[in-house]
């Protein structure tokens, strides 16, 4: 096989698993309250800043071993980002629960603007970066060429799988997960059965934000740089992944993320890297036209 193809496959898998993690936030929120949380991309952006801040704090306190640093940063970032997710829902969406259909969407866009500009004001407009944490790479020789797989990429893929596994466990096996699934099926009925649906919705935002935080730490590790505008493009792409996999479906989000990541990387490697974003957006439009329920989603039956 072609060296570029394999290299881009690895890159795509890394990118795709991170898209999948962010897509979970979109897909769960859409599943439960039927709205697109436009601010979710910016939650990811906040988490990238938090990751960098966490790393800086760690090295300031003299902690340099990789497991301690990454674990500390992860916990720090996940906790604070989850609180952001909770606060956003509380401020911008909860008061609008009985409002018109358009109101939460516009409020979400407002929230996205607030987050971007708040971070820009607090941290400055310049690009930020983190040092490389994991050095070294595997070199695989294939035929004439070779493929480089950095340890960071392996770590990202493993961490995403662990994150997804944890989430699947929570959703499938715990009481909280059962409440989430019940609320997603029928919010009114869940409420009648004594489930505090407002709290379940809060949990969903927290879970989505926590997954975005994991993604934020992982992407920051891989690329090293980011700015206050980083959430916008990644947000749309993660949404594309959610739609591709079937909005409302957790495995769909992960599958969609990986398919999008791999195909985008292949497009960039084999066709043209300037137009890779155009490729992803066009993919979104095409899916919505030809298979709006996505790969694993159920077709929508309107209630009359």
């Amino acid at each position: 096989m072609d060296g570029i193809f394999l290299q881009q496959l690895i890159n795509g898998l890394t990118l795709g698993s991170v898209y999948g993690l962010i897509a979970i936030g979109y897909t769960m929120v859409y599943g439960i309250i039927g709205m697109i949380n436009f601010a979710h991309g910016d939650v990811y952006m906040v988490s990238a800043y938090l990751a960098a801040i966490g790393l800086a704090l760690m090295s300031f306190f003299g902690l340099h071993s990789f497991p301690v640093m990454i674990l500390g940063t992860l916990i720090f970032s996940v906790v604070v980002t989850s609180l952001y997710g909770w606060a956003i829902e509380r401020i911008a969406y909860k008061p609008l629960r009985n409002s018109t259909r358009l109101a939460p969407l516009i409020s979400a866009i407002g929230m996205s603007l607030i987050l971007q500009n708040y971070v820009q004001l607090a941290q400055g407009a310049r690009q930020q970066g983190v040092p490389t944490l994991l050095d070294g790479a595997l070199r695989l020789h294939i035929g004439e060429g070779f493929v480089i797989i950095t340890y960071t990429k392996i770590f990202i893929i493993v961490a995403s799988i662990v994150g997804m596994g944890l989430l699947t466990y929570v959703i499938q096996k715990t009481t909280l997960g059962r409440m989430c699934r019940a609320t997603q099926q029928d919010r009114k009925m869940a409420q009648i059965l004594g489930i505090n649906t407002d709290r379940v919705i809060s949990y969903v935002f927290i879970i989505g934000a926590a997954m975005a935080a994991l993604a934020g730490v992982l992407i920051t590790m891989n690329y090293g740089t980011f700015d206050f505008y980083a959430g916008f493009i990644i947000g749309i792409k993660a949404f594309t992944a959610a739609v591709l996999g079937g909005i409302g479906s957790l495995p769909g989000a992960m599958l969609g993320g990986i398919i999008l990541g791999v195909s985008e990387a292949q497009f960039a490697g084999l066709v043209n890297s300037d137009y890779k974003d155009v490729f992803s957006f066009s993919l979104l439009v095409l899916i919505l036209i030809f298979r709006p329920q996505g790969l694993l989603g159920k077709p929508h039956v309107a209630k009359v």
Partner: protein
Amino acid sequence: MTQTSSSFDIKVILRDTFMVGLVSLILFGPIVGIVLDGYGFNVEPQRVAIMVAVVMAGRFLLSVFGQTNKGRAWIESFRRNDGGVHVLPPGYKSNLRFILPVVILVAIALPFLANKYWLTVVILCLIYVLLGLGLNIVVGLAGLLDLGYVGFYAIGAYGLALGYQYLGLGFWTMIPLAAVMAAVAGAILGFPVLRMHGDYLAIVTLGFGEIIRLVLNNWLEFTNGPNGVSAPSPTFFGIEFGRRAKEGGVPIHELLGVSYNPNATMIFIYGVLFLIVLLVLYIKHRLTRMPIGRAWEALREDEIACRAMGLNHVLVKLSAFMIGASTAGIAGVFFATYQGFINPASFNFFESVLVLAIVVLGGLGSTMGVVISAFVMTLLFEVLREFGDIRMLVFGVLMVVMMMWRPRGLIRISRSGFAIRKGVAP
């Protein structure tokens, strides 16, 4: 109301205030207090302290206010959310018939009073009025959230610049052509997407706006990429307004035998734009009283009922989408000719958000509201130019607050009434 709930519960207030303070400390602490600097950081505790103190004080006052009777009534008014729509009595004549002539007189006087700077500001205001009116049809009347509106604006602007460069098309040809081009783009995008359920449209249009910008940015051979292209100045029956005629012929000041006025181009653009805005206002006024306008609003209210009434919901939505797009196309032509030079940076997502903010503040569906808010926002934009970052933050806060407080905008929406008829046979 029970007695206990109306009494003043200081313990609850203090607990709320403390919790809010704690949450905001965790939220603001890292992002505001620890500023990244290379791989290290600077600590700014006093900024965090100020922000937490402000939030706590705000929460405290809100809680105290919420426990008074007046405050409770006020919070209740938030919840009621009646939309503020009312029906006018049948023979109602709007005050506009007095206001409009005054506005037109002021508009005519303006070129004689204003200097070049203010003229350009007013032109920009009018361009945003045009954009706001177009988007208001889509968002306010038809209830479709279009986040790629700037894409159609870009089609108009680049249509003029590239049409002139490659085909020699001028300002006057491009006004109708841009409207048609934008409408066709809207139709191609809208037809497949509009048949789907609601919110997907927002994200697809967002993607579309970005695709347009990315293509303009990356297709170097055709659009000159980020370096931009120049757009032609308008002419009047082939007569030019510059000091010297570029295309040959005689510039207008020589033709009329007056001294050269450097503002002439701007005054001309202003005049044409003003007439077009009036025309669009009139068309908008008519549309809301026409079957198609009523169908848009009905669709916003209840799509399923609309289908049961025999309305093809896709085509009705599409018509709103196309008319909105064509308005943006026209606005784009004016933007290009007034700037004389355009590049893709003018057509980013924030521009879409700005127009959306204009529509939201003016009131979804209210024509007057949109005109006023376009002027206010654009002027605010000019005044706050040096506070560029705060500006967008303020817009974001405004959008969230407006959705909670007045989702239908600051101006009450009125519907026209009809004289009652009795004993009519169909």
